[in-house]
């Protein structure tokens, strides 16, 4: 069997690192980045990790620590992070022709078609070049399976002796197992918190335990996915490099409000806006959806009357038209909206997604093809205009124009790389 070697590249504390590239004042200070609306912690510098602030902690719960340790706090600047991510990925393409961009800050490379004598050295080369070109520090894990590359990366991040790069292929079985028994099962790729809890009740605590657990037992308790994860840890590849990710199963567009929404009008506006974003995404992957879920919720951290609900709307025909989807989204909202609450969040999820060239039509519904085609054409025009002139230049009236509910981002850094009026200024 042909052996594949994977390198997993992961940007260290990515959002924090992006902020630091353009702001030397925070290079050696504790830094954290908050989610949309400055809700909770989504990125932490090593200093903040050492203080003990966990990922996802609501910002208001950190108030005292922020003051005490003079933590530098930023709102998430996704425009900047997306551009920096593109730069990192662009750079990575110099090192391998086969690359899977796994998330905004992670990518897998296949090292097969390159002549490399020393993987450790090659990893170091990658790490140094990414830092030099973009200013973003990365860690590299190299192994014969994706699952092991992920574990190698975990080890690298825990132990500074590896200096950011670990070639796991160089270890023999015993050496590998010694490292695997130091890592918790929760760090295995594909094992979530629920599964890891279950595993621990059966005495499977470390990655090594899981590697040698009974395969049938794993299959029975953790399905075939669990079995594959275990095989990967044994060096048997089950997951290939996916250069062209499959169309998404569900598309979600949601956000917290900057200010609590009370009025139904405002909520309708918000739901319509998120529907527009989601349906644009849907069209960009040339798909249709036939289910739309609308959800609304109040702020569970506030001492106020609480309410949360979701409406599940099955559409007669699959569609990708903002007009159709908005119509159904508002029908859904109508079902769940209750007066007298202060809402914090709403969103829409599109499901039942299928490629547009393979849609199933409803036998009993009169399907007006001409009308549909016209509408599809209109949507494509709207998308191309919005792409050229900026999102939302053309929209349905239901999206509204005032957006009293829009995002709160008090500590936003500049868009250093995408706006000429916001580029880095240097006192010379």
């Amino acid at each position, binding site marked *: 069997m042909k052996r594949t070697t994977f390198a997993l590249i992961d940007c260290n504390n990515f959002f924090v690192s992006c902020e630091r590239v353009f702001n030397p004042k925070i*290079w050696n200070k504790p830094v954290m980045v908050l989610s949309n609306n400055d809700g909770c912690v989504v990125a932490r510098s090593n200093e903040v990790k050492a203080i003990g602030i966990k990922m996802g902690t609501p910002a208001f719960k950190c108030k005292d620590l922020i003051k005490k340790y003079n933590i530098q706090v930023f709102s998430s600047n996704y425009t900047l992070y997306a551009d920096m991510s593109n730069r*990192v990925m662009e750079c990575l393409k110099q090192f391998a022709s086969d690359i899977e961009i796994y998330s905004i800050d992670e990518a897998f490379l296949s090292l097969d078609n390159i002549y490399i004598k020393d993987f450790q050295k090659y990893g170091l080369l990658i790490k140094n070049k990414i830092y030099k070109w973009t200013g973003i520090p990365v860690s590299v894990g190299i192994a014969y399976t994706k699952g092991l590359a992920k574990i190698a990366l975990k080890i690298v991040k825990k132990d500074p002796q590896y200096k950011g790069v670990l070639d796991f292929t160089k270890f023999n079985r015993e050496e590998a197992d010694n490292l695997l028994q130091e890592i918790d099962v929760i760090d295995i790729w594909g094992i979530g918190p629920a599964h890891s809890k279950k595993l621990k009740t059966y005495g499977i605590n470390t990655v090594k335990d899981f590697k040698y657990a009974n395969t049938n037992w794993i299959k029975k308790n953790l399905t075939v996915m669990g079995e594959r994860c275990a095989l990967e840890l044994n060096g048997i590849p089950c997951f290939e490099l996916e250069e062209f990710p499959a169309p998404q199963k569900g598309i979600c567009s949601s956000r917290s409000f900057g200010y609590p929404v009370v009025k139904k009008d405002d909520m309708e506006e918000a739901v319509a806006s998120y529907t527009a974003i989601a349906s644009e995404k849907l069209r960009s992957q040339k798909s249709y959806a036939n289910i739309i879920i609308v959800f609304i919720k109040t702020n569970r951290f506030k001492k106020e009357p609480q309410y949360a609900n979701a409406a599940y709307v099955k559409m007669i025909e699959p569609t990708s038209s903002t007009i159709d989807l908005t119509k159904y989204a508002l029908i859904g909202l109508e079902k769940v909206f209750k007066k007298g609450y202060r809402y914090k969040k709403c969103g829409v999820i599109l499901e039942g997604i299928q490629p547009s060239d393979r849609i199933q039509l409803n036998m009993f519904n009169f399907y007006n093809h001409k009308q549909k085609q016209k509408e599809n054409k209109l949507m494509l025009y709207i998308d191309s205009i919005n792409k050229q002139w900026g999102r939302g230049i053309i929209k349905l009236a239901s999206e509204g124009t005032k957006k009293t509910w829009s995002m709160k981002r008090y500590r936003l850094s500049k868009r250093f790389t995408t706006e000429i009026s916001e580029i880095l200024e240097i006192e010379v």
Partner: protein
Amino acid sequence: MHTLNTKSKKGMKVNLYTSTISAGFPNSANDYAQENIDMNEFLIKHAAATFLVKVKGNSMKESGICDGDILIVDRSLNPSNNSIIVAFLDGEFTVKKLRRIGRNLYLIPENKNYQVLKITRDMDFQIWGVVTFVIKRLA
């Protein structure tokens, strides 16, 4: 010039010319037409490593870098002696000429009113990128 094949009344194939033909000489300049100059291609060699920076202040005046100018900075380049660089020094960014004399590094301003700075071990110093072009608005 594009040609379209179409059928004449008698069913014969006739070539139609889609570009207009005017009387007189054909425009021979068309033969030499090229794509427009792409300023991005000219100014930016390593897109992933190139950043724009706006200058405030006049310590680099004599090398033509003045207040309000925009610098094109390429992080991928290795600075050579006398390169103009963006550097990070003790918590601040600066733009200076980098000079190596023996084993020492110096940051040289290009304005008589400013002082040369020797880089010492106790300084927090890092080169951020090499300046490749200066963009100046004249009109």
